């Protein structure tokens, strides 16, 4: 199949995306039933579909979907990014440092400033990754690993254990919509980065599939030689996209520190960057597919949490905590030849005639 033909089909909703949409609707239906009818008296149903499970799912989904979008931006332009974990951690740490040093500012200003710092540092890490992979022709997977180890080491070395971030983002209910039963408190009563993440899914989707920039990005990722021959600067697109991807990962880090937890902990990303990658693959490099996959993984994390809280099972907690990781393995294993990564991924592009 020619690369052009593939380019035109990749924006169509995949079957998997349709399935996840149906599953999501079924989940909402169950949630309404459980929270509005006597069905809610069953502990197990409350664990599976209660409002708190859904809230937790969304909270767990946000960093995953931001990480997956980060991966999509990089990989659609042909740069493999396994360093998302490190970029997230760097963003989280930068956001924390910014917050602790601006504690005396008005809360909102300080928080927004910290998010900006986190995003900038994430973007910087993305730029470093691009520099390693493009300018220095480092193997992209190894470059990503360098980013991870660097972020782990630097954040532990510089971490001041006495520093405390005062305050974090609080919920902003959407007027009107937040009054809807069940759906309102879950979807329309959230802190700002959560809304932003959901909006970004749409933004990235539109940008990738309906703008000139998106078409060129995909061309660069599929067939850089062809893109080059019509005058597109392949490596410039890769630098820009990888830096943008880093910024999204930094935003995910900001979410963890400034919205979800409120403090920094060493290694607090706990594999979320890698699960994001799985979500990106599972979502077939499509923003909405990634959202569906991230929600699935987020739901397993919520389930883990709810099961432990409810105490409804005697299964040792370690096995319950394995859920998200095992589901991730099953998800990436269940896709025999059914996903198609961008064709030029992982390869250094050199213009003809250059060394």
């Amino acid at each position, binding site marked *: 199949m020619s690369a052009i033909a593939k380019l035109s089909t990749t924006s169509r909703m995949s079957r998997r995306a349709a399935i996840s949409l149906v599953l999501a609707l079924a989940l909402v239906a169950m949630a309404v039933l459980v929270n509005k009818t006597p069905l809610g008296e069953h502990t197990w149903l409350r664990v599976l579909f209660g409002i708190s499970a859904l809230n937790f799912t969304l909270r767990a989904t946000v960093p995953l979907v931001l990480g997956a979008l980060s991966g999509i931006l990089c990989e659609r332009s042909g740069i493999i990014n396994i360093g998302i974990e490190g970029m997230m951690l760097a963003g989280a740490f930068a956001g924390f440092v910014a917050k602790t040093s601006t504690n005396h500012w008005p809360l909102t200003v300080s928080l927004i400033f910290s998010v900006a710092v986190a995003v900038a540092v994430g973007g910087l890490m993305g730029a470093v990754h691009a520099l390693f992979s493009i300018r220095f022709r480092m193997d992209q997977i190894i470059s990503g690993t360098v980013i991870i180890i660097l972020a782990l080491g630097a954040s532990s070395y510089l971490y001041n254990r006495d520093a405390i971030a005062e305050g974090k983002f609080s919920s902003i209910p959407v007027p009107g919509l937040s009054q809807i039963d069940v759906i309102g408190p879950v979807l329309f009563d959230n802190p700002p980065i959560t809304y932003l993440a959901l909006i970004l899914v749409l933004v990235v989707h539109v940008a990738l599939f309906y703008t000139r920039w998106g078409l060129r990005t995909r061309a660069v990722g599929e067939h850089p030689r062809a893109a080059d021959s019509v005058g597109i600067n392949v490596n410039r697109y890769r630098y820009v996209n990888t830096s943008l991807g880093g910024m999204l990962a930094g935003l995910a880090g900001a979410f963890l520190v400034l919205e979800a937890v409120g403090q920094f902990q060493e290694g607090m990303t706990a594999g979320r960057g890698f699960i994001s990658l799985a979500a990106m693959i599972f979502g077939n490099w499509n923003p909405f597919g990634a959202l569906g996959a991230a929600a699935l993984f987020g739901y397993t994390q919520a389930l883990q949490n709810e099961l432990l809280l409810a105490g409804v099972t005697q299964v040792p907690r370690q096995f319950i905590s394995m859920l998200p990781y095992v589901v991730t393995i099953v998800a990436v294993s269940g*896709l025999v*030849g059914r996903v198609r990564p961008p064709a030029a*991924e992982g390869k250094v592009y050199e213009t003809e005639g250059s060394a």
Partner: protein
Amino acid sequence: MAIAYPKVAFSRTLRALLIPLLALLAALVTGAIVMILSGDDPLAAYSGLFQGAFGDGKGWARTIRKTIPFILTGLSVAVAFKVSLFNIGASGQFVMGTIFSVAVGINFAGLPVFIHLPLALIAGIVGGMLWGAIPGILKVYTGAHEVIVTIMLNYVAALFGGWTVYAGGTQGQTPGPLWDETAGAISETPDVLASAQIPWLFGPPYRVHYGVFIAVAAALFVWWLIFKTPLGFEMRTVGHNMKAAAYAGIRVNFTIILTMAIAGGLAGLAGAIETLGLNHKFAPEFGGAVGFDGITVALLGQTHPLGVMLAAFMFGALDGGASKMQFESGVPADIIQIIQALVLAFVAAPLIIRMIFRLRQQPLEEAASTVSTSWGGS
């Protein structure tokens, strides 16, 4: 791979050593800059580091002891690299090796040392091999990329390890099978029996055990396996070009699974040796960062078993001196992690080193390893 004529072999070796050594130098200098920027004294730090690693017999013993797991996890990653596989799963395989060896080590009282100890070591290898084979099998039969699977398995192994020594829960959860009942609420195993412990080489205070010989033997074994056996030839062929290997009749799938199992076995052996030689028991926090260190060691050693030994020794010295450095100069030991990451960055991108030191470009230089295969789509 070019044929190594005897008269150029020497300069080839020199060239192979040049980049890693310059990378180390560049990383130490960059580390010093980081320390200066954050208000620490790099000279005091590095002198403390050197004192701690080589200052006296105790330091040497510590350095050599710390080298052991680096050799084995480095080999684990290096073997996989030879087949273009990226094993980020050494941590998990290490933990599984630990659990298996402890399970044998705390049982079978009455066995003589020359049976019990090898049995416990082999159990560790088997545990690691089983854990390592899973990503290989999944890659071959489902196309799941080993990077994601091995990382997820690291978390699963850590949790599984936590369960085996689990002291039991408040909701009637039964304790884990390896939990030490006399430890009360503490989650850990009993000590392995004396007949399964690796003896110390010298008396105290020189804390280094015979495991160092096992690690060196493992490195020689891997060298022999990769460069002197038909299987090693097949592995290298699959690593260079999977399609060509399949066309030449090499069992690519089998080679991938076996390689991942061997990689896992080496990391598992690392876990077994650390446990039977040093810790003598397992608690959930053991294992940790050995996986990422293994990657750096493997790349610094240019994925060659003998290079891995040198790189591991260097890392052993960095780790061995770290606590003394922190004690004497007040520089947090975490700076070592930054230096290690910088070493990895510089060694994986020889172009940076060539640019800094203005070296001539080697036109036919092979990349240390290429693992950027795509995510396993069609």
